[in-house]
């Protein structure tokens, strides 16, 4: 077997072989093996290694399997040693990648051996090869139970290891109650405590419902104070996991962790003896302590916080000290702590001084000779770029990062550099960054091109100051990396060109020029065909791009294109016939030729036939109507962004998006509509903001009770309300004229609403959808009615506190309107996602118009009643600018959605709308009349409401003024 011997390690001194283990040497030469090991096993392994082919190996293994099988089945009872040897051989065979379907029983028998090595091999086999055979599990559990009760620490540890390795639900059921007891018992040996802590962690991860910490919580937290560093190291993994799930119960760990960390950080490099690793005191424990602290917001206690800041400063200071050893282990351990500290600083995002120092430190690493450090610095800076305190500091490293993108030899490092450029991009440096990314694309690795293309497209759209730059960028993108430009990207450029008339001429000119290239990408032909078909007329005045020249240019590409592109070009041609009647004959000629009109592809043939017919029979007017310029696309979330999110998972892009929203409001290429989905992301309270909000929450409950007119009875858990400033009412106004839809959505949660109303009663179904793959715990949603809201709301009992990942939860609200009201009830939702408390308050879209009964009446009736309601306080009127489409049908739909009767032929002016309805409350009925007078020229409306109750007129007028 010596041919497989490894070359000696360069630069590593081989320590002297210890003399106390002569038998190890013999194992290396199995032919003369004797002593401690299993000689048969060594011979077998050696045989396998000598097999010249896979077939020979399989033959040898089958022979061995047959042998073992016969031994196990034989009449003669095997002694423990033989059993151990054969079980070990089976294990070896399994680890070679072969299936093993017997031997489990023999392994289980070994568990009850009183010889340590036999037990150990038995446990190893079970750990690696456990089988869900329930009979076997019962036997295994039995053996484990005996070992746990044995009070022999070595046996106990073996049993705990087995539980942790298998981690099945059956084992959790059997032992989840026992292990916490072992963990906190005063007389448990340290080594057993360590195993118990990690064993419990494993069970908690697989079956959290079975591990109940309750009474043990405080004693487990206090393991952080244990004398034995090993116990602390093991226990902190458990505590971190538990804290993530139940931060409140474990929050006392924060101050303990800070003081432990402080003791380690300030200790001399030799104080901790065996726990000092290459002159770095307890690097693993330090990292774990810093990780634990990331489950919590900054400590509230000033002294604790001061101590922690001191620790973080010391860690940053130490990074500047000369190394105590040249070994890479020393610097790795030291920097591991540093990076973890920086993660904590970023997590707090509240100490500008530390953030900037962290950024400077990472800046030094950007040029470090260790590739690993450059990689990590780029990665870590990505998150720093999204903090408002350090964004500017990160930006100062732009040249270094660009250089990394150009010169790093490892693609994964270049990828990190590209990510960082994307994260640090803002209006001030977008042109530079996009240019650099574009030039990198020319040589970029295939594996990251598609993502790079998406990023360039997003940045170009997001930070476009002028649209010509945007169009140039995207066309360049297609030119350089056409194959990687997905449909979303070229759809998007077309949408934007269509929606922005100031860029259409430029786009036509540019795309015309780009198409001149002898070989241009098919995506370019698509964009070119579409844009020239719509806006070719804008450049047709120039004889160099006359209609016929444009057509010939497009048609020269036709035959090289795929079917969908050819279909698109045919549509462009028919648009040409409308735009430029002089091209009609030429184009009809093309459509008429056999390769079009008899094309074997149905779609192409159909288009050719129909377009040809259309062009010959339709009058110019009809043609102009049918082939009119495309209407603007509805504004919505950039499909490219959606694609990148999908590609990278939610967290990946949103960090910078969220931040963008904070830094520079508005001014995006696509205006308000485009910001819709993003701004809702922005308004998602971040976990830390939430906790701050909680602290400053006024006791709304008591204030509300003070208001005498409150007739509200909330039968669900009454929780304190978030401050009114935190109320999210984005969705509220969208529901005035409709009853169903999505009220709220962020990265975690979607809230849908369905509601129905009859007279003064209503029922609202709320659907809470968990968009993540992680469950929400402690989920509560409560409805409260601030101020003098006088609608009576009954909630169904509290919703299920757990919302599984991807699941949807339903809540039903039964509503009774007692009398008219102005303010909306508030819906407060809280849950834990990961470690963080999410707290969200939304205005429930419950408005007075929901209780309208429509009233039909004739013209005479209407004006009679109109006159009756002529007291000044009965009328509310507003004159306002149109914010939405003034299209008649749209207005009608909205008014119908309002709930009143829309009265036709009542108002003498047919442009005006009048409506009538009665608001049904328990106390009284309020008759209402509405008149809406649009002025298309001025893009204005006058809205008049008259009702028998002044508050109703006023409220309806306010609500409706936002709708048109």
């Amino acid at each position, binding site marked *: *077997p010596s041919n*497989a*011997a*490894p*070359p000696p*390690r360069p630069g590593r001194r*081989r*320590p002297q*072989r210890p003399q106390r283990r002569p038998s*190890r040497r013999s194992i290396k030469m*199995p032919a003369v093996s004797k002593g*401690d090991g299993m000689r048969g096993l060594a011979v077998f*392994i050696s045989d396998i*290694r000598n097999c010249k082919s896979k077939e020979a190996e399989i033959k040898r293994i089958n022979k061995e399997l047959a042998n073992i099988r016969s031994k196990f089945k034989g009449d003669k009872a095997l002694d423990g040693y033989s059993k151990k040897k054969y079980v070990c051989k089976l294990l070896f065979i399994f*680890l070679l*990648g072969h299936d093993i379907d017997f031997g489990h029983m023999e392994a289980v028998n070994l568990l009850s051996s009183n*010889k*340590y*090595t036999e037990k*150990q*091999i038995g446990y*190893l086999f079970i750990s*690696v090869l456990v089988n869900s055979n329930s009979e076997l599990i019962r036997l295994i559990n039995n053996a484990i139970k005996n070992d746990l009760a044995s009070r022999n620490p*070595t046996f106990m540890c073996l049993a705990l290891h087995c539980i942790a*390795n298998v*981690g099945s639900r059956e084992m959790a059921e059997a032992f989840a109650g026992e292990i916490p007891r072992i963990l906190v018992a005063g007389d448990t040996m340290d*080594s057993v405590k*360590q*195993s118990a802590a*990690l*064993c419990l*962690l*494993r069970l908690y991860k697989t079956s959290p419902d079975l591990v109940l910490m309750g009474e043990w919580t405080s004693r487990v937290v206090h393991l952080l104070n244990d004398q034995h*560093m*090993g116990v602390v*190291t*093991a226990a902190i*993994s458990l505590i971190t996991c538990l804290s993530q799930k139940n931060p409140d119960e474990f929050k006392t760990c924060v101050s303990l962790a800070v003081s432990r960390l402080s003791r380690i950080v300030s200790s001399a490099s030799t104080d901790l003896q*065996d*726990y000092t*690793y290459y002159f770095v005191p*307890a*690097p*693993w*424990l330090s*990292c774990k302590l810093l990780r634990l602290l990331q489950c919590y917001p900054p400590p509230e206690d000033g002294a604790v916080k001061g101590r922690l800041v001191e620790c973080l400063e010391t860690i940053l200071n130490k990074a500047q000290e000369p190394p105590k050893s040249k070994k890479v*282990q020393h610097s*790795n*351990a030291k*920097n*591991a702590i540093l*990076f*973890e500290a920086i993660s904590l600083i970023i997590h707090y995002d509240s100490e500008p001084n530390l953030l900037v120092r962290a950024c400077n430190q990472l800046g030094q690493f950007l040029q470090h000779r260790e*590739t*690993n450090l*450059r*990689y990590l610095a780029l990665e870590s800076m990505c998150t720093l770029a999204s903090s408002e305190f350090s964004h500017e500091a990160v930006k100062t490293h732009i040249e270094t990062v660009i250089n990394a993108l150009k010169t790093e*030899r*490892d693609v*994964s490092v270049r990828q990190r550099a590209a990510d960082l450029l994307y994260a640090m991009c803002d209006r001030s440096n977008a042109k530079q960054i996009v240019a650099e990314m574009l030039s990198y694309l020319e040589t970029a690795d295939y594996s990251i091109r598609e993502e790079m293309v998406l990023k360039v497209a997003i940045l170009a759209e997001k930070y476009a100051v002028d649209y010509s730059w945007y169009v140039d960028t995207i066309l360049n993108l297609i030119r350089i990396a056409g194959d990687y430009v997905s449909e979303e990207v070229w759809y998007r450029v077309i949408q934007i060109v269509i929606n922005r008339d100031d860029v259409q001429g430029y786009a036509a000119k540019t795309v015309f020029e780009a198409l001149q290239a002898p070989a241009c990408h098919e995506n370019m032909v698509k964009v070119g065909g579409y844009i020239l078909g719509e806006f070719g007329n804008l450049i047709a005045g120039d004889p160099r791009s006359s209609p016929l020249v444009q057509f010939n240019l497009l048609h020269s590409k036709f035959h090289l294109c795929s079917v969908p592109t050819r279909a698109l070009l045919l549509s462009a041609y028919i648009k040409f016939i409308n735009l430029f009647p002089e091209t009609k004959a030429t184009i009809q000629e093309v459509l008429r030729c056999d390769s079009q009109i008899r094309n074997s592809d149905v779609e192409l043939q159909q288009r050719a036939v129909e377009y040809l017919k259309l062009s010959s029979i339709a009058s110019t007017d009809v043609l102009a109507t049918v082939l009119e310029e495309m209407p603007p696309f509805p504004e919505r979330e950039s499909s490219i962004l959606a694609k990148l999110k999908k590609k990278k998972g939610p967290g990946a892009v949103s960090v910078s998006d969220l931040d963008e929203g904070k830094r520079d409001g508005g001014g995006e290429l696509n205006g308000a509509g485009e910001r819709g989905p993003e701004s809702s992301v922005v308004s998602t309270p971040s976990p830390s903001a939430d906790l701050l909000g909680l602290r400053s929450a006024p006791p709304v409950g008591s204030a509300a009770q003070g208001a005498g007119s409150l007739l509200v009875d909330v039968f669900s858990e009454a929780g304190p309300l978030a401050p009114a400033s935190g109320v999210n009412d984005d969705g509220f106004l969208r529901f005035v004229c409709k009853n169903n839809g999505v009220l709220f959505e962020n990265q975690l949660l979607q809230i849908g609403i369905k509601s129905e109303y009859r007279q003064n009663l209503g029922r609202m179904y709320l659907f809470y959808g968990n968009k993540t793959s992680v469950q929400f715990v402690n989920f509560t949603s409560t409805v409260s009615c601030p101020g003098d809201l006088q609608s009576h709301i009954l909630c169904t009992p509290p919703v299920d506190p757990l919302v599984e990942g991807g699941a949807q939860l339903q809540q039903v609200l039964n509503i009774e309107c007692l009398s008219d009201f102005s303010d909306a009830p508030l819906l407060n939702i809280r849950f834990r996602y990961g470690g963080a408390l999410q707290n969200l308050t939304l205005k429930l879209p419950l408005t007075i118009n929901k209780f309208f009964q429509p009233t039909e009446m004739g013209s005479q009736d209407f004006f009679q009643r109109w006159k009756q309601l002529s007291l000044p306080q009965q009328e509310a009127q507003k004159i306002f600018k149109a914010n939405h489409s003034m299209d008649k049908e749209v207005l009608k739909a909205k008014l119908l959605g309002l709930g009143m009767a829309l009265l036709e032929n009542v108002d003498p002016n047919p442009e005006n709308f009048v409506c009538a309805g009665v608001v049904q409350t328990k106390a009284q009925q309020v008759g209402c009349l509405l008149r809406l007078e649009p002025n298309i020229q001025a893009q204005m409306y006058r809205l008049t409401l008259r009702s028998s109750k002044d508050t109703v007129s006023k409220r309806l007028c306010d609500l409706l003024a936002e709708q048109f």
Partner: protein
Amino acid sequence: MRFMLLFSRQGKLRLQKWYTAAAERDRKKMVRELMQVVLARKPKMCSFLEWRDLKIVYKRYASLYFCCAVEEQDNELVTLEVIHRFVELLDKYFGSVCELDIIFNFEKAYFILDEFLMGGEIQDTSKKSVLKAIEQADLLQEVAMIQSVVLSLGQ
């Protein structure tokens, strides 16, 4: 940590330890894929890479690659030193460990790993503590051996 793999430059798997449940078939596929990715990397490249939804931290020692898959939020550098500490433990136990030690004493390699990591988390970082546990076990083993020798002599 999700799993740890030891494999040779020739792509032979020498040790595998899984800390989360997965079907055997998926495991084999992951091992195959990951070995391919890691073996294709050049020596000066960084020790970390993104693979599927995991972070891979790997390091080569002589002919063996030590490769850990950790979660997104785990610390890469500290994982690199987990690998190193494991190598040190093997080295101390076997006395200048080489690939053959791990092949012929695979069960010992598993025992050492188990003493060091449990459920993917570090149980103890002290070299002394870990080795003490292993040596104690060896001592028990030798006692058992002597007993069995005595027994067979008696027969």
